[in-house]
Each structure stands twice: as structure tokens, then as C-alpha cells.
């Protein structure tokens, strides 16, 4: 919960969090080591110095640390757990639905547990998706199109097998498809970060929502164009948001373009925890205004109403969260006990 100086309460849903194990004990090979070190470079490069963690903590943090960082020190009311399996790099996987489900189980009102699928898993994978969905009542999945599987170095959303999985997701009521574009898609002579396949599936699956993580970066320009055409394509702010500290000028341009092309109803806040933590991200975001010269170019303004949508209301709509009812639940469970009296006494 974020509370403004005027006492307005802003309900925050963190659209992108992880409970991973990237520790050396879990690393299968050099790629596992390089993967977590690459994440750590993002963390080190873009975090304020006071928020930097030692590598050991970053590699593997416990559930309590995560809970405190998100909900006690941080302003998150709820967080979506997005799995990333990486079973070719990590012995027990990096951040599986199973691992995430333990923390969800301890704090059911705080977390939304997403699943995952990989179209290269064939019929068995479809069966697993059914089982996963039944077990966890999934409303969303996270897809990492650059995941390595043996000889395969990734897939496209437009692959025939992926269509079958998306059809299955639709039938199972999994409405939210979070897409993370990484490098190394085969064939290697094409643009590895191309977002054109998102355009294709968004047209074919009008009932599904496609939340493109990192707002399509490093293809923000192409992504904006697609999101303008497709009503069911959303922008996840992870990776762009931390620039608010190191490079506020760039962040201003990016948020201004996103508001211009994608619109205030289709942008979702995400900390990408443990890469970054909600406290400083939201403090900076709430204090941020788009400079006049940038507004002049796009007409975009980051109003309080828009901030409220980005921080929680948009995700609440996608995941069917009744904000007032959820606040009551969290309050009843003592979830706001650490906040100043005025906040948790609010109706």
C-alpha cells in the first residue's frame, strides 16, 4: 500500500516477481552461472548504491526476505509470481511454479501464482499444463521464448505447437500470457528480439491478454507500434522502470512514448524482484513527473490517476482482483499492521 501525502491509498500489484534459486549449488553448468551473473549486472547497474545486494544474497534469498522486501519495506499489496524454469541451466530449475507455490501457500492473499508452458514439451506438456492449471487455478502464464532445451535455443509464439498451447490456455481460463523476449531464437540469422510473433498471436487469440514484459525492450519501437494496433497487448514496465534512478531522462522518454502509443490502461508496474525492490522504485515513480519538453512531444502526462492504474488497477482488472475486498482481507490478516494508524484504520 502506498499512501500519498494527502492520505490517498494506492493499491499496488507487482506484475513481475521471482522466487529463484540461482546459487552455485543449483547451477548445472556455465550457462547457469552466466545467467544469474547477467541478472546481477542488471541489478548492480541500475540500483541506487544503498539498494545493492551482495552476489550471495542475490543468488538465493529466502521467503521472509522476499515477503519483507515486497510487502513490509516495500509498497506492494500483491505480487504476481512469474516462473522461469531454465532446467537446462539449473538442477532444480531456476524459479519454477512449484518453488513459487510454497511462498504463495504461506501468503495466499498476497500472491498470484502464474504457471508456465513450453510448446516444445509436446503432448506431455499439454497434460502437465492441465494438471498445473487445475492444481493452482492459474489465471496467467509466463513464457520465456529464449529458453534452451537441449539443441533448441528457443521458439516463436507463432510455432504450430505454441498455437495448440495457447488454445489449451484459453480453454482452461488462463487469460494472461506474459511474454518475455530473450535472445538466441533460431534461426540465428533473424532478429532474436523480434516482437512480430506477439502481433500475430494477439490477433488470433482475441480473448487472451498478452503482457509483453520489459515493454518489448530492446524492441520498444516495434512493440509500441504493435500495441497500438492490438487492443489485447499490454506493456510490463520491468527493466524500464529502474532507469528512473540512473537515467530519469530516458525513463521520461520511454514512459511518455508508452503512454502515447500504448495508453494508461495497458501499462503494468513490475519490480522484477529480486532484480530490483519495490520500495525505491515506487518512491521514485510516485515523485516522478514527465518534464515539460518531453510532454510537448507526445502530450503524455503522468497524472495521479495514471500512476494508480499502472501501479495496480490495470493488473487488478486483468486478474479479476476486487481491490476493496482484497484490502479488507489483507487488513484482516494483519498485513497493514506495520503502516501508520491512519492507513490501516481506513474504511
Amino acid at each position, binding site marked *: 500500500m502506498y499512501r500519498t501525502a494527502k492520505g490517498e491509498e494506492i493499491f499496488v500489484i507487482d506484475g513481475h516477481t521471482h522466487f529463484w534459486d540461482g546459487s552455485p549449488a543449483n547451477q548445472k553448468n556455465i*550457462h547457469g552461472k*552466466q*545467467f544469474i*551473473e*547477467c541478472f546481477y*549486472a*542488471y541489478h*548492480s*547497474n*541500475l540500483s541506487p548504491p544503498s539498494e545493492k545486494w551482495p552476489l550471495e544474497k542475490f543468488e538465493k534469498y529466502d521467503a521472509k526476505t522476499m515477503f519483507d522486501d515486497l510487502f513490509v519495506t516495500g509498497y506492494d499489496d500483491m505480487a504476481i509470481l512469474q516462473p522461469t524454469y531454465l532446467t537446462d541451466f539449473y538442477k532444480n530449475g531456476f524459479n519454477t511454479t512449484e518453488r513459487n507455490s510454497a511462498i504463495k501457500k504461506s501468503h495466499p492473499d498476497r500472491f498470484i501464482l502464474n504457471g508456465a508452458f513450453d510448446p516444445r514439451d509436446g503432448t506431455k506438456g499439454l497434460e502437465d499444463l492441465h494438471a498445473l492449471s487445475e492444481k493452482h487455478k492459474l489465471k496467467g502464464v509466463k513464457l520465456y521464448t529464449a529458453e534452451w532445451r537441449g539443441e533448441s*535455443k528457443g521458439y516463436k509464439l507463432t510455432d504450430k505447437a505454441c498455437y495448440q498451447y495457447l488454445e489449451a490456455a484459453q480453454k482452461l481460463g488462463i487469460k494472461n500470457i506474459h511474454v518475455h523476449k*530473450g*535472445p*538466441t531464437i*533460431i*534461426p*540465428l*540469422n*533473424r*532478429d*532474436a*528480439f523480434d516482437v512480430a510473433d506477439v502481433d500475430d498471436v494477439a490477433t488470433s487469440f482475441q480473448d487472451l491478454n498478452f503482457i509483453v514484459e520489459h515493454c518489448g*525492450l*530492446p*524492441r*520498444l*519501437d516495434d512493440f*509500441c*507500434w504493435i500495441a497500438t494496433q492490438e487492443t489485447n497487448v499490454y506493456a510490463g514496465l520491468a*527493466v*524500464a522502470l529502474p*532507469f528512473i534512478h*540512473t*537515467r530519469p531522462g*530516458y525513463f521520461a*522518454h*520511454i514512459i511518455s*512514448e508508452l503512454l502515447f*502509443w500504448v495508453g494508461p490502461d495497458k501499462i503494468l508496474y513490475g519490480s522484477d524482484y529480486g532484480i530490483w525492490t519495490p520500495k525505491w522504485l515506487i518512491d521514485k515513480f510516485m515523485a516522478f513527473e514527465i518534464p515539460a519538453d518531453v510532454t510537448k*512531444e*507526445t502530450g503524455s502526462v503522468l497524472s495521479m490517476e495514471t500512476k494508480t492504474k499502472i501501479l495496480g488497477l490495470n493488473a487488478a482488472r486483468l486478474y479479476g482482483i476486487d481491490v476493496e475486498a482484497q484490502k479488507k482481507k489483507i487488513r484482516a490478516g494483519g498485513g497493514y499492521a506495520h503502516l501508520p494508524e491512519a492507513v490501516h484504520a481506513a474504511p
Partner: protein
Amino acid sequence: MTTMNERGDQNQQMAGARPRGRAAEVWHCLQGVTDPELDESVVELNFISRVEVDSENRVHIEFRLPTYWCAANFSFLMADDMRRAVIELDWVVGVSVVLGEHMYADKINEGLAKGLSFRDTFGVEADGDLDDLRRTFLIKAFQRRQVALLNHLAGAGHAATTVVSLTLGELGDLPVEDEGAKLVRRYLERRDVVGPVRADALAFLDAEGARLKADGLSSYVSGLRRVGINAEFNSALCRGLLSVRFDLETPFVAKSKMSSSTNSGSQHVP
């Protein structure tokens, strides 16, 4: 042998320590090689970690990238462009380019050493060469340079009607101050991506080679704005990741072994 690593080049203030002679020529040459995605020089981006010229005029170049996962195709393109640029120097008898700490380093380095094409290097993992990819990013680079120049010309008071009818000859003759001259030069370097370059050809065309219209110019410019913003964001991210990955922030302290070869170690001891 002349040895000069990147830190030496970037950090040393002593004029005498700057690369001289043939190594300097190689550095100068590499200045013109760009990261196709970012449209910036690989030297400016700090990607080159080592340049050596041996006594037989063979050049050895080492480079590294911001992450272990940087796309294989761009990595290969940059290495290939470095080789092609440097071999143009008339005294060079051979060029080796080696990429370090990358998921495809072995494969790329082997392909480069054998002088293979991208397609032959990656075999079944690639279903063609890199021409389409290169063109996609040349167009983006063109658009980014064009929008920067159009904004500059608008800011300097040139009317849209005048701008869209300028020929390349007239653009070259336009009285502009330093910043403008740089933007014109950069634009002209990429203008051939969209159409033939002749003095009487129109200076400003869109990506399809069609002339721009004065009345739609501002919406055309705002449509292209995101291309430049994307590239600048990526560039900032890449520079940041590179500097963390190779600790380029910490002032360089020469190890005793190196100080004798670079003859400048004491300059860096705080």
C-alpha cells in the same frame, strides 16, 4: 609489438601512452565500425579490449560484449565488419578477431578464424545469411539519423516545405553550425540505404524511398521518434551492463607486470 588495451586508451592522460603508429591506425579504423543495433562505434561503446600489431604486420583484435547472451548474429556481424575494415589498411597482412566470454564464443571464433560466412559458421542453426537483418537495422539507423536531422532543421527555422524539397546537393550546401554539420554528415552516411545518392536527388525520403510530404511531416517525425528513443535506451543499458561486467568504473590500477610493458602503470595508482 605495440600493445594497447582499452583501459590504456581510455584512461591514460599521458600523451606518450596513447597508441601510436600502426596500432593507432587500427583504432582509427575500428572507430568506423558500428554495433548495428545501436548504430554507435564499437570503440565508443568500449567493446574493443585489445589491439595488437605484431612485427609482421598481423593485427590481432579482441572484443567483449555487455552480456554473455548478446545475440550471436550481431556479434558475428561486428567481428566481420572489424576484420573487413582493418584489412583495408594497405600494410596489414592478416587480421584475427576474437570474441571473449560469450555463449557462442567458440563457434564464432572458429568461424572467424577460418574466414567462414555466418551461414557456414552456424550451419543448421541459421537458415540464411545476415543480409535481411543488416538491412532492417540499417533502416532503423537511417531513420534515427534522419529524425535527428529533421528536428534540428525544424529547430533552426527551416520550413517543412523547404526541407522536403531539398536536394542532396542543397543539403550539403546548407549553412549549418557544428552540431548541424555533424547531423548532416551522419545522415548522409546512411542515406544510400533508401535510394540512389546523386546531387539532384531529394535529400529526404522515407524507408520505402518515397518523398516526404510537407503537411504530414510532424506526424512522420513523431512516428520515427520511438526508433531513436529505443536505440538510446538500449545503448545506455548496454554501456551500463558492460561497465558492471568488466568493472570499468573502478579506476584502473596497473599490475606490476603490466606497468613495464605499457610504461604507464604508476599513472594509475591512486
